[in-house]
């Protein structure tokens, strides 16, 4: 997140850690404010009882997208300098599924588990221990899985490039998708709100 300023040498290793720390504190603060320090609230998402995760994440996407689009248009941000993660299609599909299963089972994603740990939740402690165990296991197993992990490399892709659409149209479509999604989310909540996990109504 502190790229490209760090990479271009505008500040050094130590200061980049300070920047990362400040960004991390800010990120954690807003996760906690959104209620994401609670595994119950997070897992309610998967039972369609509380769509806060969907709302917060999609709102963040739309805000960042509109902000970057207009700042780029005004010439205040050079979009060609923004880091785009390279795509490794199948490894990322597999990784996404693995993370999703872990999210449902454990009640947290990596970021929210640290937020919950900061407020002293013991289940988050177990979850974070699991993260480190997983990192260790991946590191040990890396020679066996690196072939897959680096397969189907598609480079740096953006939606306008893939869809051959103007960026502005993609922006509008994503906004409409978000607004439609929020409307649908409210309908789902009304339908499922009363139900507890595993009990009918």
């Amino acid at each position, binding site marked *: 997140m502190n790229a490209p300023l760090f990479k*271009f040498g505008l500040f050094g290793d130590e200061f980049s850690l300070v920047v990362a720390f400040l960004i991390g504190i800010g990120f954690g603060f807003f996760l906690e404010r959104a209620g994401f320090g609670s595994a119950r609230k997070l897992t309610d998402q998967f039972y369609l009882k509380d769509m806060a995760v969907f709302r917060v994440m999609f709102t963040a996407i739309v805000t960042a997208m509109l902000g970057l689009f207009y700042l780029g248009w005004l010439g205040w941000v050079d979009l060609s300098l923004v880091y785009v993660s390279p795509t490794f299609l199948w490894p990322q599909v597999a990784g996404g599924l693995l993370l999703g299963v872990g999210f449902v089972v454990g009640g947290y994603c990596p970021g929210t588990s640290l937020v919950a740990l900061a407020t002293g939740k013991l289940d988050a402690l177990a979850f974070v221990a699991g993260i480190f165990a997983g990192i260790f296991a991946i590191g040990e197993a890396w020679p066996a899985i690196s072939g897959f992990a680096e397969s189907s490399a598609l480079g740096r892709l953006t939606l306008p490039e893939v869809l051959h659409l103007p960026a502005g149209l993609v922006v509008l479509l994503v906004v409409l998708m978000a607004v439609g999604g929020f409307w649908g989310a409210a309908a789902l909540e009304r339908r499922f709100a009363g139900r507890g996990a595993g009990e009918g109504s």
Partner: protein
Amino acid sequence: MSAGRPARWTRNQKLAAGAVALGLGALLIGDPGDGGRVTLDARELAALVEGEVDHVTPDELADWIVAGRQDFRLVDLRAEADYAAYHVPGAERIPITGLEDAELARNEKIVLYSQEGIHSAQAWFLLKARRYPAVYILLGGLAQWQEQVLYPVRPEAGAGAEERAAFERAAARAASFGGAARAAAAGLAPAVPALVPPPITAPGVAPTAPPPAGSPVKKKKKEGC
């Protein structure tokens, strides 16, 4: 809300409407673009050149490679045959005419080198004109890399302890790159052929199994955002 009149919009509905309005504006704009502008601030470029902030010394580059840094791309601008004979570990060959089509992203740190430094200076200018913000030149090119990093000169017998310690470090580093220390006289004597290209070894790579020469050994960078 008063009964009988149309309900007023909630705050969320207003925000959604605002987002849709901005989205429609984006549709009209079409492409935020990087403007396609080529801005060349001659004074700024001159200041960069004078301040020598566009340089990376061979010592710095060697330390980066030893430290395993992956946050830069090293570009060899020389001919194919020269590249095949020797290149700095991790370098990829991009001819100066190929810079236009090379997949160099603007958000990358790019270090250029050629044999002496003239080509890299020219390539530096080409990339700067195309708004690449972080382009650097290996000072003195490959020639100075060989002199300074691969074949450091042994200090005179009467050299101070500090100079000796610095030399010991340089010699150890030279060995890890496949080079060796040389006596001071060797630089002037006909023993100049001592500056033959060593095998392309990067520190950390077992010297018994050097990567096949000529293959771009640069791996995909992994970095978080």
